[in-house]
């Protein structure tokens, strides 16, 4: 999995592409988020549109990064969930935990 990183109006936008699965994408996501936190960037928006598969480890990593960001006084939000990722967040009831957006402008303004 590859993760593009860009900054928009003080918000770091991460764009993971591919699978967030055990031993591969989950580690990459963790490292990407922690790099931003270590650099003092605490407003993080993950654009999920390029995520094709997310297993339980990937979901666990999303939860873990959400907690890490919150513990450092930041916010982590999700943008443009693919239908299957949205289904999983519904099934796991994590949709109630994450703030999710369909529109990037609106998401960036919300921080």
């Amino acid at each position, binding site marked *: 999995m590859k993760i593009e990183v860009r900054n928009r109006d003080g918000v770091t936008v991460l764009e993971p592409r591919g699978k967030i699965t055990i*031993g591969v994408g989950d580690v990459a996501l963790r490292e990407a988020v922690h790099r931003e936190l270590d650099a003092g960037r605490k407003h993080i928006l993950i654009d999920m549109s390029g995520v094709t598969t997310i*297993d*339980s480890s990937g979901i666990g990593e999303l939860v873990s990064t959400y907690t890490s960001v919150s513990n450092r006084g930041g916010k982590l939000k999700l943008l443009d969930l693919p239908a299957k990722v949205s289904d999983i967040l519904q099934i796991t009831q994590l949709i109630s935990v994450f703030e999710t957006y369909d529109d990037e402008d609106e998401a960036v303004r919300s921080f």
Partner: protein
Amino acid sequence: MPDGMLRRDEASAMRSDEHQFHLAIDSRLENIELVQVVLNDTLERLGLDEDVRHWVDLATREAVANAIKHGNDCDRDKTVEVDVSVDGADVVVRVADQGGGFDPGRVEDPLAPENLLRPTGRGLFYMQKFMDRVDYGTRAGGGTVVTLRKQVFAPGAAAAAAAPNGDSDGGER
């Protein structure tokens, strides 16, 4: 007929047991991708649509990951066996490890409020949600066998398609 479900005779005229595969992998997480490729090819050959393939793939990933991590403790000298078969209207995935056994009753409910933000503990939940049935058994010689079952064909059509072969049992062991 639910979305993604095909009549067997529409899906393929091949014998059901030609759609089975058996893989024995060593206990490395990278091998999950190998299982995924073979599984996806098999399910595609059966005529199953992308949605069904996706959910079966996700459930299988969890079973194989559990077998590697929790069953075999990532010991590369231990193998995980994956068998996929068609049994009537169902696709059946069987994953066996060489670990010390497993009690699914001890796994906590990931939807309980106190567990919602836990980073782990959702693997079995994935399997149960994405498949119709999940059974746990003991492997001869030690280890756990997880059997995942999902109906993917219309029942009547499956029986009719299997009849000419005189063998409607896809080979679940």
